[in-house]
């Protein structure tokens, strides 16, 4: 057993620090792990949930940057809509959101205060709405007074048309280079009388038929109005849709293609126009595509973020 320093030399009580060591000030670092949850409305959730029947769903693939001075941290949201950061120094950050093919409106805070009060990390929710910039809806008006079996005094289009263009990229969208477009037409030559309009005739996606006559400019993936510009003076409406349900641009486009192809089967290959505007025609086709793909002309938010509403028209 050690009996102390018995028999040994006692260490010197004096200690001289080496002169070449720097002075070290020990300061507790203020930092925390951080998660930002990016979410948008989810349509189709059971009613009775919060927000008047809308639920919220995480949005994947959003690049979330937080910036303080010259320091920026960037992370991309995962399948749950969460962007995760570790060891973020305390401070006040500016949040910016980006996602290719979308324009994002941050409906929540754009400033983020980070402090070290939580050892397990902090979670911040951001509620957004997104506009898909690589799908574009075109609407030529119907002049109802002259639509059936007639034309107006100038010989211009009384029927109108609704169709949907899909672009590969935002650059293509800005230069109006769609890769696909879809609209619903009566098969070329199928309408033989005004009465057919109401009883219904054979319909065709894009008015294209592989074995019969097609409209000029039609193909399986191009509506006859494929090349018509958004600056065409007769258009009553042209817009990029807002989205819900947290999907990627590729997923929205894929749904559009799939539903455009399956529409004929769903409506028994019928084109029709009822007096109340119902039936299976270009307008109801576009509205159908939009609802199926969670695309909306309007996505609104009410006071206190309650009362979200959507509309295809």
């Amino acid at each position, binding site marked *: 057993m050690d009996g102390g320093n018995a028999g040994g030399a006692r260490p010197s009580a004096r200690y001289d620090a080496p002169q070449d060591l720097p002075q070290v000030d020990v300061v507790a670092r203020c930092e925390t792990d951080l998660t930002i949850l990016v979410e948008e409305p989810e349509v189709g959730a059971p009613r009775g949930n919060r927000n008047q029947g809308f639920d919220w769903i995480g949005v994947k693939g959003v690049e979330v940057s937080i910036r303080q001075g010259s320091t920026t941290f960037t992370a991309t949201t995962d399948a749950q809509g969460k962007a995760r950061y570790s060891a973020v120094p305390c401070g006040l950050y500016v949040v910016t959101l980006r996602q290719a093919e979308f*324009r994002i409106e941050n409906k929540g805070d754009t400033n983020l205060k980070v402090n070290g009060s939580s050892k397990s990390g902090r979670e911040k929710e951001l509620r957004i709405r997104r506009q898909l*910039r690589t799908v574009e809806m075109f609407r030529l008006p119907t002049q109802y007074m002259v639509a059936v079996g007639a*034309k107006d005094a*100038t*010989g*211009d*289009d*009384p*029927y109108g*048309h609704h169709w949907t263009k899909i672009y590969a990229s*935002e650059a293509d*969208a*800005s*230069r*109006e*280079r769609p890769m696909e477009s879809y609209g619903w*037409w*009566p098969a*070329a*030559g*199928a*309408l033989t009388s005004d009465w057919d309009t109401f009883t219904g005739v054979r319909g065709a996606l894009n008015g294209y038929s592989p074995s*019969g*006559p097609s*409209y*000029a*400019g039609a*193909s399986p993936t191009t509506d006859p109005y*494929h*090349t*018509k*510009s958004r*600056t*065409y003076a*007769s258009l009553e409406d042209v817009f*990029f849709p807002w989205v819900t349900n947290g999907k990627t641009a590729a997923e929205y486009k894929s749904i559009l293609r799939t539903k455009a192809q399956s529409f004929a089967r769903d409506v028994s290959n019928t084109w029709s126009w009822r007096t109340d505007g119902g039936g299976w025609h270009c307008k109801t086709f576009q509205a159908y595509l939009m609802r199926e793909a969670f695309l909306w002309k309007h996505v609104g938010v009410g006071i206190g973020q309650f009362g979200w509403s959507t509309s295809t028209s």
Partner: protein
Amino acid sequence: MTGSRRTVIVGGLAMSGLNLLGITASRATERALDNLTEPARGRDLFYFTHWWGYQLVPNIAASSITDYEGLALEYGFFRGRRDAAGRLAYMESWTRDRTDVDLATEIDGQPLGDRKIDYRDNDIATQQVRTFVASKSGSEDWREVPYAETEGQGRFILLRLYAPLDDDGPDSGRPALSAELVDQYISEKAHYSYAADGTLSKIVSYRRDNGFTPVEFVP
């Protein structure tokens, strides 16, 4: 437009997604067809940008009838001819396939991006596009020509402005200059015949996607 069919583009140009050899072959077929089917060019042929209707013979939107000058900003257009009774007798669908050209590409020693596009009243719909065609020698040299000289099937470089998508979007700001390689060609044509009582009796159509094989439709 010159009749040259170039399949080699100067460096710096983005190549078209088209199968150029295929296009060349189709054009050869079409040149032969032109002699057989295309009416002589003249005043009876008119351009328009919009047709409508669900019948086999489309209706021409009267307000969209224009001269070639009026098609400068269009991405596709039509050309038609009426018979003596005013019925549509012939119709062509024209396509303009477009691919980007690098604005750094130099023509006559000047980058495309350094050239100005004039427009009035802050409205780019009034812009005066600039166009360039390959020299007649078939070399890779391009020369600026008046837009009117691009009429007909062929290829040209179009320098133009695009509006930003909207005022508060990511592309907001001034109009953007863009250079595009435009392949302008007939994608489809149709002849309409009428019986003595005025009813449609036959359509003969030619489509590029089936090699311009004539297809007859009898109502």
